[in-house]
């Protein structure tokens, strides 16, 4: 990966011209990389500045101009006053809906995934490989294919349009990935450890509890972040299986932005979008390393 022409130390540069050329190339490279950084940052910048402007200033000013007068009115309205249809309570109730949906959903799917992964990695039995393959395939199905029967089933069990219903759905369809994460992690722990523990009389749960669980912190963090991002950002299940009172924040945000009543308040839309994105953005910034590890583990399978 070292760049031969740029970082050669052994040989003298062939000429002053070549040296200048190399330096120019280097500057060009940095300029290009920073230009791309601007491209990725621009939407966030525009969202933030728009959310701090008054509607008047939005109408008269430029998209990328800094706010002349900073006002937090739009943030207040997005949080507690914007209309998501007929009710105008802002994002606040939906934010808590998402929290109440995500926390149990993440914990349940992670815990079950850890146990499953432990079994697949260390307690092989006949047919385990086949079952694992079927479980893995379940990660890939387009959820549209289970949408209709799930809606009916939730209705039959009285869970339609409720937060427990959404927790259930997210737990079930999260299990494939959580199991995969833990299985791939536990597979690296030598089987001799389990064998020795068994000889010492430790059972299935005892081995899990005192040997595997204490080793699990890194993979647990990866899994929790992955699941949290998935559940918090979900829209399809949220919009299909919730009712007015139990909608997650992504659905509420979409309703605020697309509600057709009254004047279009772009500043409120942008503040609402940032509020909806903040929890996952926060997780990414404080635990980016684990976030990336989950992403790459989720894509490099097996």
């Amino acid at each position: 990966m070292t760049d031969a022409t740029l970082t050669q130390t052994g040989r003298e540069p062939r000429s002053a011209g070549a040296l200048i050329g190399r330096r120019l190339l280097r500057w060009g490279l940095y300029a290009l990389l920073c230009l791309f950084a601007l491209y990725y940052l621009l939407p966030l910048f525009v969202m933030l500045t728009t959310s701090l402007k008054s509607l008047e200033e939005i109408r008269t000013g430029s998209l990328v101009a800094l706010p002349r007068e900073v006002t937090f009115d739009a943030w207040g309205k997005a949080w507690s006053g914007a209309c998501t249809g007929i009710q105008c309570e802002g994002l606040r109730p939906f934010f808590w809906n998402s929290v109440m949906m995500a926390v149990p959903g993440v914990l349940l799917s992670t815990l079950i995934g850890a146990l499953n992964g432990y079994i697949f990695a260390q307690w092989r039995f006949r047919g385990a490989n086949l079952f694992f393959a079927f479980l893995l395939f379940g990660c890939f199905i387009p959820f549209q294919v289970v949408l209709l029967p799930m809606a009916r089933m939730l209705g039959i069990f009285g869970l339609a349009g409720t937060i427990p219903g959404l927790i259930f759905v997210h737990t079930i369809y999260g299990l494939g990935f959580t199991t995969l994460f833990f299985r791939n992690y536990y597979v690296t722990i030598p089987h001799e450890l389990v064998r020795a523990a068994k000889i010492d009389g430790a059972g299935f749960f005892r081995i899990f509890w005192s040997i595997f669980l204490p080793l699990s912190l890194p993979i647990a963090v990866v899994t929790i972040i992955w699941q949290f991002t998935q559940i918090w950002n979900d829209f399809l299940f949220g919009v299909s299986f919730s009712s007015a009172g139990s909608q997650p924040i992504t659905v509420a945000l979409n309703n605020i932005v697309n509600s057709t009543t009254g004047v279009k308040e772009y500043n409120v839309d942008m503040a609402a979008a940032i509020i909806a994105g903040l929890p996952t953005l926060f997780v990414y910034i404080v635990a980016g390393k684990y976030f990336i590890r989950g992403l790459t583990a989720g894509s490099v399978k097996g």
Partner: protein
Amino acid sequence: MTDWLSRHVPKIVLAPTFVAVLLFVYGFIAWTAWVSLTRSKLMPRYEIDGLIQYERLFASPRWDTALTNLFIFGALFIGISMILGLMLAIFLDQKIRIEGALRTIYLYPMALSMIVTGTAWKWILNPGLGIQAMVQGWGFENFTFDWLINPEMALYAIVMAAVWQASGFVMALFLAGLRSVDGEIIKAAQVDGIPTWRVYTAIIIPSMAPIFLSAFIVLAHLAIKSFDLVIALTGGGPGYATDLPATYMYAMAFSRGDLGQAASSAMIMMLVVFTIVVPYLYSELRAKND
């Protein structure tokens, strides 16, 4: 008894997951497949009536648009994200001093919900106050950038937002791949005086074939499931111009009350995923067991 129990504990613990997957993944797929063969409208009916729903589906111009859109969107989204991701990864791999910060910036969109991304881009691209108005305000009064409301171009607006969201992730995948190439081979090539670009095209990139495949699978999967972004950005419009199979299915299921069409379009989506993912999963699992 306790002996039997202790021998079978792993299977007992795994049983609920087994039942859940059997029922909620495979059972539900079977249910959808069944309903796709019936004349179900608002309520599901269970008398099989052949391939009538599929005939209706492929006779529908709206579905035709949705499927064509999926292939255009998928090809552009996957192609551009891969090229951009690879390019950024190679550039970042040149001992860049601020690599950590740049990586963080390139990747953060992946943490956002597609609804948030869609909302942001909808604002930026809106002709009245967004980029178009901004450039016109600079004095270029004939400048037009109305992709969002132009039926011919709206799909490309979605590609733009989707690439923004996912290309950083492809960059991270490729960067990890570049770092895992054996350094000795590269050093040997450099000692032989082979220019850097040749080292990349002849040695490093060919050795990353598995990563290209992974990136392709993930992006293809994202493209087929794309629903949120379309809903937030265009709502499938103008007209049906940016409908994708996922939005078609949703409209049939929840606003048109046409379960037969919803089920058959979901099955086609499933089929597309199947043809891409199954060979991949098969080869991955086989490689593992060898």
